[in-house]
């Protein structure tokens, strides 16, 4: 194999010599490791998503790597507390590492690992997924397939308080749609959404197993039965 075709590998991405040089250049500018640039960049991208800014979808194809890395570096320069941000990310990644270790980095536990990450962060941050992909040797597409297939996973940050509205059959026949409407009115968000100051995330579930209370909503683990608009407003106000 010729020298120019050799590839170095980090964070699960194969990059060519030329692209590696680009990254080295960026590295000098930002005082970050090469993987740090990419990971931080990816994290930023995912944050942009969550803010709803119109960013093009994440494209990890090699030919886009340079432009992408440049853009990330650009964004990086604008971060003021850079050291802190990096430290935080390293912490996050080491948490993910622990989870992966707990499951012996076994490919068949991928869903279990993602569940643990979700439980820890209340969402699946992109750097964490990159790390999982790297350590388990599972492709991005497979992780994305799983992360978007199952309802338990969220690729955007969730609010500090979760509101679940039960739409199980028993609640449905007892007027759950009407209750959900009231909740949407009070929180000003739709199911699956998080409000702008990340206070609430509203989700719907199919049966919580407490059909006697239906229609029911759960706010941070507390159950509320047949709530009126006034009660909902009070419940919402009690959440910081």
């Amino acid at each position, binding site marked *: 194999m010729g020298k120019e075709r050799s590839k170095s590998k980090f964070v699960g991405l194969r990059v060519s010599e030329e692209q590696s040089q680009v990254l080295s250049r960026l590295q000098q500018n930002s005082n970050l490791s090469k993987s740090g640039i990419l990971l931080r960049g990816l994290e930023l991208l995912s944050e942009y998503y969550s803010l709803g800014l119109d960013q093009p979808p994440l494209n990890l194809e090699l030919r886009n790597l340079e432009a992408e890395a440049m853009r990330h570096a650009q964004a990086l320069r604008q971060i003021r507390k850079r050291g802190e941000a990096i430290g935080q990310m390293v912490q996050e990644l080491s948490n993910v590492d622990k989870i992966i270790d707990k499951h012996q980095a076994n490919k068949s536990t991928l869903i279990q690992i993602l569940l643990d990450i979700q439980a820890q962060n209340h969402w699946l941050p992109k750097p964490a997924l990159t790390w999982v992909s790297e350590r388990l040797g599972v492709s991005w597409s497979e992780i994305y397939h799983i992360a978007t297939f199952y*309802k338990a996973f969220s690729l955007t940050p969730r609010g500090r308080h979760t509101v679940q509205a039960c739409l199980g059959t028993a609640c449905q026949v007892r007027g759950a749609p009407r209750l959900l409407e009231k909740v949407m009115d009070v929180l000003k968000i739709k199911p699956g959404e998080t409000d702008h100051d990340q206070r609430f995330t509203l989700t719907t579930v199919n*049966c919580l197993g407490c*059909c006697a*209370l239906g229609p029911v909503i759960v706010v941070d683990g507390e159950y509320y039965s047949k709530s009126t608009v006034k009660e909902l407003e009070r419940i919402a106000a009690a959440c910081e």
Partner: protein
Amino acid sequence: MRRLKSATDLERVRQEILAKRDPNKPCVTICSGTGCHAYGSEKVYAAFVKEIQGNGLQEKVDIRRTGCHGFCERGTLVVIFPEETCYLNVRPEDILEIVSTTLIQKKVVDRLLYVDGNGKKVVHEGEIPFYKHQSRIVFGNNRLIDPKRIEDYIAVGGYTALAKALLEMTPEQVLNEVIRANLRGRGGGGFPTGIKWETTRNAPGEIKYVIVNADEGDPGAYMDRSLLEGNPHSVLEGLIIGAYAIGSHEGFVYVRQEYPLAVENLNIALEQARERGLLGTDILSSGFSFDVEVHRGAGAFVSGESSALMAAIEGRVGEPRPKYIRTAVSGIWERPSNLNNVETWATVPLIINRGSEWFTGIGTERSKGTKIFSLVGKVKNTGLVEVPMGMTLREVIYDIGSGIPNGKRFKAVQTGGPSGGCIPESFLDLPVDFDKLTKAGSMMGSGGMIVMDEDTCMVDVARYFIDFLSQESCGKCVPCREGLRQMLKILNNICTGKGKEGDIELLEELSEVMRDASLCALGTTAPNPVLSTIKYFRDEYEAHIKERRCPAKLCRELITYYILPDKCQGCTVCVRNCPTGAISGGKSLIHVIDQEKCSKCGACFEVCPPIFNAVVKLSGEPVPASVPSGIKVTHKR
């Protein structure tokens, strides 16, 4: 903790546990199942602990948090042994009185007792009609056991079936006993369990797996959850017996992550069983080894399907595959894998202990034993009920469930979850078993039983299930993915008054294709809610389409709210609650709804005091011309 090495060892430990217990010592059991938990059972428990300690009774009274008792309607449930005094709707503020009256003075707190239709008070749990008509053979131990303590399970005779199977029977004998018992899968299809076991047992390959399916996804069904949360050892015992009969040494429990308490209690149970030598290597010194791993499902209805579930256990996306070769022969990692539902596994120890003859003595000709149903919806006594197969729907809904609340009329009962169908009033005397339900166009499914009254729109029910299924379809096969999408479109049209002639026929045609061509049971059974409602409630579909009328007055686009001028008392409560400001009229003036502004949210209908009943819903009839504003109420009540 001591490892148990034989059946005598087990019996000795059981006797030791019992000897430590004084049968006359009062024991307060607090239901901590999901329903009661939602009512605040933890606070009730804390109040009991505080009050009992405050009175210096901690040595004289036991407190136990148990799994679900089933009577969820009246939670939090508290039963005080040995008298079995049953208190309902217990709140933390009642505890002071219970402790001083019942535990100290040995008297009954009247106001917390069950009152039957004739005003008679019922003291004992077993005499409450809700419980009296049930046969709680699988579910009954829940109320006696703290699920976090293996001693409680051993005390009620737990693991004796395992000892009997491992030490006195050959795997073939165990298998034949289950085949003779004609136990059918409680998860939905009703496939004979013994035959399934035999297939896996005879399938080629050294390594075989046994799996518990606890991916209970049917909305409105929660019996598997209550069993796993309330009595995890019974499921585990059944699983080990099954593994022995099949020749498997590795098992999985696939449980939804939405059931965190089930996961927790199950993990505790596994740990305790391992410590006792009831799980792991050389169980009860029989030479048989077996262990279990817990897999949490991440929330996908289709993952309850066998091949999808097994893909998920392998760490892949839980999508079904074509099953030319059954999973019993080629499942997890292409090895023979036997999958059964939670309730099925929990029934196995009973069959081994009491014999297949006892089991076949319960139920109907082709459906043996009991089944747990979650009786929910528009029914007075919501809860989990266990009845022998063959009991009629009427007995379940009226004798156990006490009928429909608020004096409304029964319309239909939906069984079998999204794969099932709606059964009308004319079938109320139908004996409930696998085959009778299928014949009526529904199915047993996992045992959800959702009661509907006259206010339920059957087209909306069909739309609800198709909406659920279209979200849950994995999208792998076209008939299911596109069929559901088109069905949902048509049903949405019908419910919003945009239905066309021929829509019903089109739904039927789509159903046929989905039934024939879908990859897995999600798709092939998906048309059931539509077909059964068309079959029994075609007139409702026609009213929606032809007359733009919703007979149940539920579909928003087809109804109008109207204030009856001769009933309105001008109290302004609806005016104040209207979110769009559509209602005019001040104090003592007749209120009028501006139909242009009305968003049909129904707030006025909900808040109008029942003694006035002035707000009505109209559907399919012209709205009377509104009275001019400013007219005074003349006929004050």
